[in-house]
């Protein structure tokens, strides 16, 4: 079995990988501080996956009362991020990538003084910002053919510290048909859970959509026999609008409840933005 791996990428970025976890970390600050931050993050990383998998049984079960008690810090972050959403089907795995990003960001920052940093866990991103050091993030609608569809600028005054994207083409399975749903929230775990559910809600019944039981696609899926999307052919404009409306409604509920700060939804060229103010988003499409 291979252990955690560490490498430096061009541009002084730290790459950590272990099994399915792939992190790209970048920190800005005094070189000495950045080096120490990378070192402590690397050390913290070795334990992330082994501890996480020890509680997989609990984390793969659907959430519902009572509140599950987990030991691992990543597992706790996952459960806490998914808990508000338990009225619909969700397992804590919906927030795994974001929770790892949050935990690793905390490890990166502990005792260090950094102007800015991010931990990018396969598109689910935890942010550290300070005054005068905003972050510019781009959003792509289709991971197979990335086109920069929108970008967003987040500064320290904003409560946003997490960005996550979900869609049926992504690495995780989706019950919906969204090309991409990007959510801004106060943590990466919160954004991850919400993006998963909003992407599930972007849906419509149409013969152009092919679905298969989750376990037929991935034997170990926590979604069991639920139908996941495996192909979406061209949809009529009306079906696209209808699917986006149902996704937007789900996002609006989360926005009202304070679980997310904003959401960007895209499906076959049509897009929607759900936010208190739209000025955070700049659509370049």
């Amino acid at each position, binding site marked *: *079995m291979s252990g955690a791996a560490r*490498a430096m990428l061009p541009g002084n970025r730290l790459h950590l990988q272990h*099994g399915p976890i792939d992190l790209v970390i970048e920190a800005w600050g005094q070189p000495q501080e950045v080096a120490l931050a990378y070192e402590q993050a690397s050390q913290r990383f070795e334990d992330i996956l082994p501890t996480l998998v020890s509680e997989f049984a609990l984390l793969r079960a659907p959430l519902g009362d009572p509140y599950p008690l987990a030991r691992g810090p990543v597992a706790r972050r996952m459960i806490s991020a998914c808990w508000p959403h338990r009225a619909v089907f969700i397992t804590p795995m919906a927030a795994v990538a974001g929770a790892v990003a949050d935990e690793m960001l905390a490890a990166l920052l502990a005792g260090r003084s950094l102007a800015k940093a991010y931990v990018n866990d396969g598109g689910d991103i935890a942010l550290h910002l300070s005054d005068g050091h905003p972050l510019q993030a781009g959003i792509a609608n289709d991971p197979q053919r990335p086109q920069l569809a929108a970008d967003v600028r987040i500064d320290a005054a904003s409560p946003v510290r997490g960005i996550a994207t979900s869609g049926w083409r992504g690495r995780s399975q989706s019950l919906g048909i969204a090309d991409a749903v990007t959510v801004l929230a106060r943590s990466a775990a919160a954004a991850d859970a919400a993006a998963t559910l909003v992407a599930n809600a972007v849906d419509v019944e149409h013969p152009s959509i092919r679905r298969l039981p989750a376990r037929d696609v991935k034997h170990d899926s926590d979604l069991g026999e639920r139908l996941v999307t495996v192909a979406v052919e061209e949809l009529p404009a009306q079906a696209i609008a209808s699917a986006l409306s149902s996704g937007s409604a789900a996002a609006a509920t989360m926005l009202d409840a304070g679980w997310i700060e904003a959401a960007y939804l895209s499906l076959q060229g049509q897009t929607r933005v759900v936010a208190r103010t739209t000025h955070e988003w700049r659509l370049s499409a």
Partner: protein
Amino acid sequence: MRDPEDAPESAEPITGEVIRCDACPVLCRIRQGQSGACDRYANEDGKLVRLDPLLVLQRGSPAVPFLEAGKPWAGNLISGADTFITGIGATTTYPDYKPAPFIVSSKLGGVDVVTVVTEGIFSYCGLKVKIDTDRFLGPELAAVRVDGEQIGHVTTAEYGSQMLSLGGVRHLTGGSKKEGNVTCDAMLRLANKQAVEVKIDDGASVVVQAGVAPVVNGEREERMRVGCGSATIGIFAKQWHGHADEVIVVDDHITGVLTEHQAGRFLDMPAAGIRVRGRRSTPGRYFKVADPGLGWGGTDITDPLSIIEKIDPRKAWPGMRLLMVSTTGEDAEWFVLDENLVPVKQSMPGPIRTVVDRIVENCEPALCTVLFMGGAGGSLRAGVTENPVRLTRSVKDLITRVTCGGAPVYVWPGGGITLMVDVLRMPDRSFGYVPTPALVLPIEFTMTLDAYAEMGGHVDRVVPIAQALRHSRFKAEAWRGENAWPVQE
């Protein structure tokens, strides 16, 4: 922590269909045909395999086996001068202006050489398919179809070969969604050296596969004839002269008769008076001496004498020596006319046998060959340099060498970087696709570091090859001997 290239030691079977991947602590159970949570490992026929690694090619030393049972990859056999990173599995970057995924340097004879490695997404691309057969496949411009969708057309025939032009932006993105998807899928299979059956309007059904003989209407074409019967006469007339009094080359297209043919006249050979069946085109050249079939020279005959209509007693003479041979040389018989001017089969003299063997030797195996053609002059250049036209000029000036998966390319003159590459010279499964639909082609630009700096290259992103390989998963294959090593001093 360990090296990222560590391979799992074993994959424990759980049931016949599901294996347990122990590449990492997640221990995914993976069913046949599925991949694990990481999408890096998959169950292929009950075996744990790694998906889509970056392909590096090595020369000199044998390639390091990847994922060999129980032997984790140590990564220590890599040295810059004998290792070439291909674009296969390199992925691409977006937006385009970001430096390409790999910009690597190696040192050769004290000169720093840079290779920019990327995968390009091509909508403007097509395949030129050459099918070695004289059979009628379809009229020029006829639609070539797969699943009823037009994916290309029959284009100008070449000597001994029929030509198809497939793909292109009009079929990929200009028609219906289905037309685009079918075209993309057929192109992908052909480019990856797999077989595709095409149907040609008002023509034949052909199974095409690069490097393999074509199958036309269910019949496999084994070899190309040396030429038509008339051409065969033209090539070998002088070699027969003095050893035979008449030679008839049996062919489904044009049957040649030596003493009537211009070639025989030129040698002052007396007319032998043997008249063959069929319609005379010009002297010594006959169409349709028999029906098409699996007999001599693509006709249906098995007894060559059956194509002789009559022998003129005023011209023929007893003892006249007659060779009958097919255009592939596979069938040949030697006759001498008796006192009644009846051809009698006899054993073939050595000098005649030599020329018949030479016909056989000149028949090449019939093959389908596939050239990919596409324009690399677009935005992917921005991943190489900040000033794209300088890359184009550098390629045109032969300062920058372009390869696709290590294979040499022909760059068409004129504007842009329009290139052609023989898919057979590329590693297996070099091509990918995106749902646009469009094909994904590995492409590498190699030049000296100085030349790279001069064109405004992303010099700050150049890393030594060994470092690039440390950070990415890859698999090594042996360099193909027929391709020139791209990194030159």
